[in-house]
């Protein structure tokens, strides 16, 4: 396929995406479900790509995503909740005075700076998580595969426990959670932040560092023999991955408007792992597509399994609340058993591959039609 044609296709696709967003933005109440699902899918795609960066590209099986997301979410939330709403949020134990004075200081800034606060909050959340990642990465990244997974999982649970501990009541509001978090202004804002994050990670993966990450994934000994400093590169991948996980966590806090420590339990990490596996371990576009698909099917397309189903007067016994998760787990099982490479495998989206697929599909059908005659 020629280059011009490809860029035309890409432009058309971009126009379709933008038009779709305009349409949803204009009709957000009529298509509330699609709007919500796409927004959440975009947010989860950031953490999915970051997990793919660490697990799929560098080969570090880390299950700490939820912990880093929690850090990002809480930092973002405390930063963004309006100062006069704080007393209402922390109605039980009160607000830590230094946080309060920090908030008054924030709100005394000029208006244009204040309009940047959501972005600043997300970056700050990411940086805090990156510092944590650097500290725990030092001992933890010496571990291999399953042990690394267990250690990071443990870290994530520790973060959750600390956040909900009564000692931190005046900072994190303990187990009561935070609410009144200002949300996104529009779908475009969500999309723009997601696009910038994913773009930055793609640029990293395409650089020589990205190649070194993949070399480490393929063969640590050979990578070391080629002069790649293993611990430095692993640390780098882990810290950057944690940064973007936390950004995604902050976005999730803005999306949900109220969070508590249970939001960031282990099952959130599993959801993300699921997205990465379905999308294809080692494919960025796969992760983005899968986070939209998985979010849509979990929250929307499979909903009807939860409603009671009648055939005539007979009520089909299994259809009740929660059944959709059973179906979902079965799908996951099937993917793992028969479709391990996921949607994209290790490949990225390209028009050439798509046209090849379409042509194969059409060619196959034509041949089929001939045989039928």
């Amino acid at each position, binding site marked *: 396929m020629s280059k011009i044609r490809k860029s035309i296709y890409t432009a058309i696709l971009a126009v379709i995406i933008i038009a779709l967003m305009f349409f949803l933005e204009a009709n957000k109440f009529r298509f509330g479900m699609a709007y919500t699902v796409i927004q959440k899918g975009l947010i989860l795609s950031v953490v999915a790509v970051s997990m793919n960066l660490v697990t799929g590209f560098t080969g570090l099986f880390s299950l700490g995503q939820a912990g880093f997301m929690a850090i990002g979410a809480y930092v973002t939330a405390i930063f963004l909740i309006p100062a006069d709403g704080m007393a209402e949020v922390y109605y039980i134990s009160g607000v830590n005075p230094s946080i309060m004075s920090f908030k008054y200081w924030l709100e005394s800034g000029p208006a244009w700076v204040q309009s940047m606060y959501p972005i600043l909050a997300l970056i700050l959340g990411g940086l805090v998580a990156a510092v944590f990642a650097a500290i725990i990465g030092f001992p933890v990244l010496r571990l291999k595969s399953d042990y690394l997974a267990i250690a990071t999982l443990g870290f994530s649970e520790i973060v959750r426990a600390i956040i909900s501990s009564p000692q931190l009541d005046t900072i994190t509001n303990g187990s009561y959670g935070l609410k009144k978090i200002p949300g996104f202004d529009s779908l475009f804002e969500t999309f723009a932040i997601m696009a910038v994050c994913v773009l930055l990670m793609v640029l990293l993966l395409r650089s*020589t560092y990205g*190649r*070194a990450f*993949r*070399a480490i994934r*393929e*063969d640590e*000994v*050979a*990578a*070391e*023999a*080629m*002069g*790649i*400093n293993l611990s430095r590169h692993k640390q780098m991948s882990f810290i950057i991955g944690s940064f973007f996980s936390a950004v995604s966590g902050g976005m999730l806090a803005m999306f949900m408007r109220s969070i508590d420590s249970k939001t960031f339990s282990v099952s959130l990490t599993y959801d993300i792992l699921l997205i990465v596996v379905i999308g294809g371990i*080692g494919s960025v576009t796969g992760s983005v597509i899968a986070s939209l698909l998985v979010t849509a099917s979990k929250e929307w397309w499979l909903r009807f399994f939860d409603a009671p189903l009648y055939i005539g007067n007979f009520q089909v016994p299994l259809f009740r609340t929660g059944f959709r998760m059973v179906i979902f787990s079965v799908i996951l099982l099937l993917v793992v058993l028969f479709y391990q490479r996921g949607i994209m495998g*290790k490949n990225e989206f390209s028009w050439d591959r798509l046209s090849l697929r379409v042509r194969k599909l059409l060619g196959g059908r034509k041949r089929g039609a001939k045989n039928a005659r």
Partner: protein
Amino acid sequence: MAKNNLLRLENLCVSYGGIRAVKGINLTVPEGEIVTLIGANGAGKSTILRTIAGLVKPESGKIYFKDNDITCKAPNLIVEQGITLVPEGRRVFPDLTVLENLKIGGYLRKDNLDADIEWVYTLFPRLKERSWQMAGTLSGGEQQMLAVGRALMSKPKLIMMDEPSLGLAPIIVQDIMNIIKTVNKEGVTILLVEQNANLALKIAHYGYVCETGHISTEGSGAALLEDEAVKAAYLGKARKK
């Protein structure tokens, strides 16, 4: 010998999980030559190479490269000095393309790699044909070429090869030996570890025979081929592993 010594090991001892694998080795590699280290399984040959490359830390003894002490330095610093290891069993990166594998070989270099990629491709035209193929889909011989090419990308002064003939058909092994000779003619010093003593000694300028962590005999390649003890121990049974 008038030539400069590129690499010198002094009384090197290495332990692996409590077992002493290398017990006081003295060895020199003159610049521009092919030096081979032969010996049976478990004699400690691979351990010596891994120690020089910095992947294993020695217990005692010194390693000098161009009269600089490089003992216990990190692997990336050793590669920067100009020593590259072609690991045992080739160990190319299977899910990276041939070109990407070569680029990883030059990872520590800050300058442009294009000229050297072309140079490797002229040495191994087969790799150029397969530039965009995943390295895992190459045949064993091609993977060995890639492993050597990848090592050359760091512009090493010394290449250490660990069993390049392992698991390859005899006709391919001959190709690999020719490649080693070609690379050496390009001015790269080679330290070759082999079980296939017969072939290794034929192309080597100098040889060491390694026996359970010691150097038992040394001499020029031709002399070792004629040595009765070496003949009996390694050459007669060279095929048997």
